[in-house]
C-alpha cells in the first residue's frame, strides 16, 4: 500500500479511485447469479419442442393445456436439478446470496403468469394463453437475468417479443411461436450458456 502522504495528492486520488473501482467490481461480481444451467435449458428446449410437435395431435383446448402444463411440470424440476448441480460445482448456494436475489426477481412474473392462466382458462380465452405464457415467462427471465450473465436477459427479452407476437397474431401461428419460444430459443441459449458459461 502506498503511503498516504500529502505531498503526493495525485497518487492519493489514484489510489482512492482504484479502491472505489475494486469495491464496485466486487459488488457487481458478488451480485451475479451464474448457476443458470445451459444443460437444464437444453432439456427444457427438447421438452418444449416435443410439446410443440405433439400439439396438432390434440383435439381440444383442454388437451393442449394439459400437454403444455405437463411439459412444464416435467421441465421445472429437471431445470432446478441442473441448476443445483451447476451451483454445487461452482460452490454457489441456491438458498443464499445471488441465487436468492435471482429467485426473488424471477418468481413474481411467473406467479402472475399462473394467475393469468387460471383467469384466461376460466374465461375460455384459449387463444390468449400462448402469448400470456411467453410474455410472463420472458418477463421473469428478464427480471432474474438482471442478476445473471448477459445472455439471460437477452433470452428473456426475445421470449417477451415472441409472446407479444403471439398475443396479436392469428391462432394458427401459436404452435410455431410456442415451439420457437419454449423449444428453439431454449435450445439455442442452452447451448450458448453451456458452452460459454460453465455448463
Amino acid at each position, binding site marked *: 500500500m502506498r503511503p498516504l502522504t500529502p505531498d503526493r495528492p495525485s497518487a492519493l486520488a489514484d489510489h482512492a479511485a482504484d479502491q472505489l473501482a475494486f469495491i464496485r467490481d*466486487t*459488488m457487481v461480481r458478488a451480485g451475479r447469479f451464474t448457476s443458470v444451467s445451459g444443460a437444464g435449458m437444453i432439456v427444457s428446449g427438447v421438452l418444449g419442442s416435443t410439446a410443440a410437435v405433439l400439439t396438432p395431435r390434440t383435439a381440444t383446448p383442454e388437451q393442449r393445456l394439459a400437454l403444455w402444463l405437463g411439459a412444464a411440470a416435467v421441465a421445472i424440476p429437471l431445470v432446478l436439478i441442473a441448476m443445483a448441480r451447476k451451483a454445487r460445482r461452482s460452490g454457489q*448456494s441456491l438458498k443464499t*446470496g445471488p441465487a436468492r436475489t435471482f429467485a426473488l426477481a424471477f418468481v413474481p412474473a411467473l406467479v402472475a403468469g399462473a394467475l393469468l392462466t387460471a383467469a384466461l382458462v376460466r374465461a375460455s380465452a384459449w387463444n390468449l394463453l400462448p402469448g400470456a405464457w411467453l410474455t410472463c415467462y420472458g418477463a421473469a427471465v428478464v427480471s432474474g437475468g438482471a442478476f445473471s450473465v448477459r445472455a439471460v436477459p437477452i433470452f428473456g427479452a426475445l421470449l417477451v417479443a415472441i409472446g407479444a407476437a403471439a398475443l396479436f397474431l392469428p391462432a394458427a401461428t401459436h404452435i410455431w411461436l410456442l415451439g420457437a419460444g419454449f423449444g428453439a430459443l431454449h435450445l439455442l441459449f442452452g447451448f450458448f450458456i453451456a458452452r460459454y458459461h460453465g455448463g
Partner: protein
Amino acid sequence: MAKVSSSAANRGVKTRASVAPALVPVLGGEPVSTALDKLIHDRVRLGIISALAVNDRLSFTELRELLALTDGNLSVHARKLEIGGYVQCQKGFDGRVPKSEYRLTTAGKRALERYLGHMEALIEATRGVR
C-alpha cells in the same frame, strides 16, 4: 443446530475502526483524514465486506470462489473482520458437511460507508491540485 459466534462489537470492545481519524491538510485542498480504517483497507477484507454488502449472507465457499482465495487466506481475513465486529459468522451443517455463513453487521455496513466517503473525500480534496 447453528450457533452464532460472538464478535468484538457484540461485546462492546473498542475496535480499530472506532478510533477518531486525524486530519491533515492536502496541498491546496480540504483537510483529509489519513487515519484510514486499516481493517477494511486491505484488499481481501475490502472484497469480503463489498461482497457481503450486496448479499444477505454468503457461505465460506461462495466467498472463496468469488474472491479467488485459498481456504487459509479467507479464514484469516474473515476472522479479523469477525473480531473487529464487521462480520458475523454462523456455523452449522449442510447435511453432514460443516458450513460457515457470513453476514455483514451494522458496524460493517457503517464502516464500508465511512470508507467510501473517505475515498470520495480524498479524490475530491486532491482534485484541485492535480
